[in-house]
């Protein structure tokens, strides 16, 4: 079959190709918004139907942790073998992770307003999450304050490792050591009553995977854009010198 060419002389098959994991992400998210509202959930007091927010609020945090972990791993790779390539991957995953974190905290506030009475309850889980996000905001402040790109990449890679090491206890350990209203905190790991429910698990796990894949997708597009930008800057430099 003759391959069609678009006006820019590219084969359509090259432009149209879509990775299987991107398609999987779309399918899982479609399943999340349909199954998430139509399938059975436990009938619990106070949370009532808002229990369905679990399919959207919690995957934001799972997504954030995966993005930040990837970012840290590439920061380590950068320090082992410095190069702009690993730095770009590291910073863009941190960027996407921060977006997920903000969405997680905002959705958490909406949910808390309904179930806890106030948007900001001062709960250890909320405070920990807020501090963790501020630590990651400082990562971008640090990057923005350094002119030299190698220095920026090296210092921010070191800070990135610190930021990840600080986030884990802030979000996953401290809330469990104290009393917290947040499910999964106050001594008990996991989701307790929700986790036991088979129906919810059938939507929750696919939702987590779907949202994480969407985050990876966004991050990779941003990484590719940054690589293009770098290449253009390189070409401009060559032209002018």
């Amino acid at each position, binding site marked *: 079959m003759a391959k069609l060419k678009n006006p*820019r*002389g*590219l084969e359509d098959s*090259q*432009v*149209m190709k*879509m990775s299987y994991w*991107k398609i999987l992400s*779309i399918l899982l*998210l*479609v399943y999340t*918004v*349909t199954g998430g*509202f*139509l399938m059975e959930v436990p*009938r*619990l*007091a*106070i*949370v*009532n*139907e808002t229990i369905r927010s679990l399919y959207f609020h919690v995957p934001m945090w799972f997504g954030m942790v995966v993005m930040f972990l990837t970012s840290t791993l590439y920061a380590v790779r950068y320090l082992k073998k410095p190069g702009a390539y690993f730095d770009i991957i590291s910073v863009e995953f941190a960027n996407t992770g921060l977006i997920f974190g903000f969405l997680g905290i905002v959705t958490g506030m909406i949910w808390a307003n309904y179930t806890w009475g106030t948007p900001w309850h001062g709960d250890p889980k909320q405070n920990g999450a807020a501090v963790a996000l501020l630590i990651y905001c400082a990562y971008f402040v640090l990057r923005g304050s350094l002119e030299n790109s190698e220095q920026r990449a090296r210092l921010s890679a070191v800070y990135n490792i610190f930021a990840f090491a600080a986030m884990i206890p802030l979000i996953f350990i401290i809330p469990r050591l104290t009393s917290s*209203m947040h*499910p999964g905190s*106050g*001594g*008990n790991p996991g989701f*307790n*009553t929700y986790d036991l429910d088979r129906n919810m698990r059938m939507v929750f796990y696919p939702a987590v995977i779907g949202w994480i894949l*969407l985050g990876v*997708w*966004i991050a990779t*597009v941003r990484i*590719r*854009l940054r*690589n*293009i930008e770098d*290449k*253009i800057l390189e070409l401009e430099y060559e032209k002018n010198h």
Partner: protein
Amino acid sequence: MKRIISIAASLGITFTGYAQEPEMADGMRSEGKIYVVVAILAVILFGLVAYLISIDRKVTKLEQRLNDGKPR
């Protein structure tokens, strides 16, 4: 956690008054209005995903133009 559940349960009783079990959106479901919510969310999801796909394709085209050394 047991304490939280018990607090939650006791509050639930005061909120729902004489109801035997927590209130859920059963009315909305039986009227089929839940499909309105699902449809709206599906449209937003499709819109955003379509947008992401178009951005992804634009990036692919840019990458190809740069790598093939085609006139810019």
